């Protein structure tokens, strides 16, 4: 008896402990705490999917429980036993059609949102372009409009769409800031776009999501969103106090090292395009020259 009580007590403590912990963890569940329109759309469609799949999963669990409990092979079991029963057209039509309907609904939303997310989230405000290069094992952010550069952190104005243009001068990686929205790969010889926007100021965790070698686990960075005025102030501060980004300095950065956050008062015009096309970069050269990937956009 005493042992039972002790067990119940332990169980209750564990439950209470968990329920106390959960709200604290709530904010740390990054993808369910988005702060921008892209992350918000993604969260909504995630919630929708969870509801839709529950329509199948929950009845399956309940049915399994009932069936296993009721049709156990026990001597006194009075439940019907029909060993030859193996066809029922109506039942089969029901469970072919329910998943079809659910998948139909999900597919419609998926296609809609897939197309929506390649467009800028906000067409009113002029976007800001940031060129992102993943290196071994660090992130280089260049601001072609502001003519500055940072390493392992970036600042963005809130309430303004950001056009991240992504490439890599190292093995592939993936650029992911969960609270702003989903990730996209950085690939050598390619320049790909990712639209994100922050609704409110704050510091948001970002990381490399695709394994890129020994220092991969250390490739995280902060994205700091500030109101436009503060952002401009920060840009001016960097322009006046930080050292310039020379080509030599870039060459040092491109080595296989792990470094602390850095700031540079200049970017290297043309460096990003050079990184993309240095090894041939044949796939993107046409796009770059035609201005399809407009690395000069975003100047105020």
């Amino acid at each position, binding site marked *: 008896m005493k042992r039972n009580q002790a067990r119940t007590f332990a169980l209750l403590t564990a439950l209470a402990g968990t329920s106390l912990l959960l709200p604290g963890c709530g904010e740390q569940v990054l993808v369910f705490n988005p702060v921008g329109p892209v992350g918000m759309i993604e969260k909504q469609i995630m919630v929708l999917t969870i509801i839709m799949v529950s329509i199948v999963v929950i009845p*399956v669990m309940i049915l399994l429980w009932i069936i296993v409990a009721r049709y156990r092979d026990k001597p006194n079991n009075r*439940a019907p*036993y029909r060993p030859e*029963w193996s*066809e029922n057209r109506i039942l089969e039509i029901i469970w*072919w059609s329910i998943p079809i309907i659910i998948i139909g609904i999900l597919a419609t939303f998926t296609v809609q949102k*897939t197309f929506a997310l390649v467009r800028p989230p906000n067409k009113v405000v002029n976007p800001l372009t940031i060129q992102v290069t993943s290196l071994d094992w660090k992130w280089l952010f260049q601001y072609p409009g502001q003519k500055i550069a940072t390493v392992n952190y970036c600042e963005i104005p809130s309430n303004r769409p950001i056009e991240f243009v992504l490439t890599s001068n190292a093995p592939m990686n993936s650029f*992911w800031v969960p609270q702003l929205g989903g990730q996209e790969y950085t690939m*050598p010889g390619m320049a790909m776009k990712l639209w994100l926007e922050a609704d409110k100021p704050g510091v948001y965790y970002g990381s490399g999501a695709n394994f890129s070698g020994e220092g991969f686990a250390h490739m995280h960075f902060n994205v700091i969103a500030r109101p436009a005025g503060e952002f401009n102030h920060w840009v001016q501060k960097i322009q006046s106090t930080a050292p310039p980004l020379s080509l030599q300095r870039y060459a040092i950065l491109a080595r296989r090292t792990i470094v602390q956050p850095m700031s540079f008062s200049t970017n290297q015009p043309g460096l990003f395009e050079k990184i993309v096309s240095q090894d041939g970069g044949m796939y993107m050269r046409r796009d770059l020259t035609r201005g399809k990937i407009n690395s000069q956009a975003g100047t105020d």
Partner: protein
Amino acid sequence: MLHNAENFASHFFVLGNPMIYGADVSILLVIFGIVFVLTYYKKWGWLWREWLTTVDHKKIGIMYLIAALLMLFRGGVDAILMRTQLIMPNMSFLKAQHYNEIFTTHGTIMILFMAMPFIFAMMNIVVPLQIGARDVAFPYLNAISFWLFFFAAMLLNISFVIGGSPDAGWTSYPPLAGITFDKGPGENFYLLALQITGIGSMATGINFFVTIMKMRAPGMTLMRMPLFTWSVLAASIIIIFAFPVLTVALTLLLLDRLAGAHFFTIFDGGNPMMYVNLFWMWGHPEVYIVVLPAFGIFSEVVATFSRKRTFGYASMVASMIAIAVISFFTWVHHFFTMGAGPGVNSFFAVATMIIAIPTGVKVFNWLFTMYQGRIKMHLPMLWAIAFIPNFAIGGATGVMLSVAPADYQYHNSYFLIAHFHQVLIGGTVFGMLAGMYYWWPKMFGIILNERLGRWAFWFFNIGFYVCFLPQYWLGWMGMTRRMYTYSTGMGWSLWNFISTIGAYMMGIGFVFIVIEVGYSILYGERDLTGDPWDGRTLEWSLPSPAPHYNFARIPEIAGRDAWWTIKEARRKGDPVVESKPFKPIHMPNDSGRPFVLSVLFFVFGFSMVFTWYPLAFVAFLGILISLILRSFEYHTDHTLSVEEIRHTEEAYGRV
């Protein structure tokens, strides 16, 4: 000269890590132990005659099973090491490089050297027995398949102590896996080992496709085949179409690495994304190759232990074929975030979701096979029932991942890790364990101990949820896969701790299985009837273990659940005419060539890893010569006389 030798040795052997020295010592001890036991008990001849040269599908299946369990142990140890490193933030149990090697070998071994041989074990042991055949269509080729797999597995495993393990992930994406970023021989081990085992898998696919199409007993039409055989047919079709793609991808990457080609380099016009496409054109169908046979096993187990016909047989077959076909149109969902564009992403997202429909139908059909049945909770059924909630969650998270815009948030995160472990462990591993418990009496004539099996089941099953449910949460919290360490402050510590505890519980579950097997061999209940579960399909009509020619008389099939029908007729007292006279049986000869050929493949692979081209050339020549010699071999089969058959059958008491 001495310096050169030192330099060579320090690159050839992996040095400087106490864990690897420990592994060196234990490998040597095991080898000495095996050699000693074989010599002391004078078993070398027995080993060669009975096992190394056998072409009997049942023995080959048993060897696959042993290899799969050993590889499950190796991959499991990898998993335990990784989870130990992640139990707390900033642990220094493993260094980054070591961790990277371990997750690479964990994935590679679990998919190609654990899941694949496990399904091949079940296919080999069961399919000919279920369709009333005396062996597979090409028994000699079957032995080659096994030995190629075996030596490929050895090739990958020695990389741990010689040369260094691959470290670019089991997907081995260039440019990371290319020569620019990965100089060492580790990646060569990966490419050559997969290539060699891939040839074996391809041959197995062809072998079983032909076996099922051509060697069924008279009267067994396609729609009378047991569902496990159907699932193997579907898996074989996928193997035949998917494995050539892997062969091409690996060959091109190997040419990049060894011959300076530029297929997947980032310069001179190569394109790494082509590798990613090719890899997943094989990789996604591969998932269904390993899960469809598990579905087949569940269908057999659920029907047998519910003592009822399978519900919706036609739907079950249709859904397996649908899955097999659609599985070839979903590969891009592994890289929605590589910028393929919204049109492409939409197509592959919807194709992926469509797979959920036939899969969901199968779950309902299993449920309604149990409905109005009489459920006996033996070990195989326990694993089958535990599979259903597991797979429901795994399938649901699969649908969640297929929604392309949401996948931008799940991709490469622990959410993905949790999902595919849920379907691969909950589907494939649970299925294979169910199959192992189910057919163990047929293989060895012993029933595995129920009590120890239940301990194993509960530890493994609860441990599974404790290990992987927190990982969904971790993914939502932003933790990405393949991180060897993480810092405090993200809120990840608690969930990682719980997850590691779950992994340890699964480890304990595995230990219980090992104890159970050992105990049952010594003290287990013997199966004297040949039909311990009151089975429904033909394999249970034979004694356990089955004689090497399987069927003394080829049965005539009158309907589905052939053996059940015969038993029903006997219960009703219908005299079943079984007095047809024995006829001589035509059987294949054993051969040592598959073993020798595979050793040559091993030598070839090993010398290619270190680019010792002269030795590779010699080995390649050896391969060619043994192929040519085989084609001039005329005495490849023999005939069993009626006397011999009668003698064997009398020993079983079945005349």
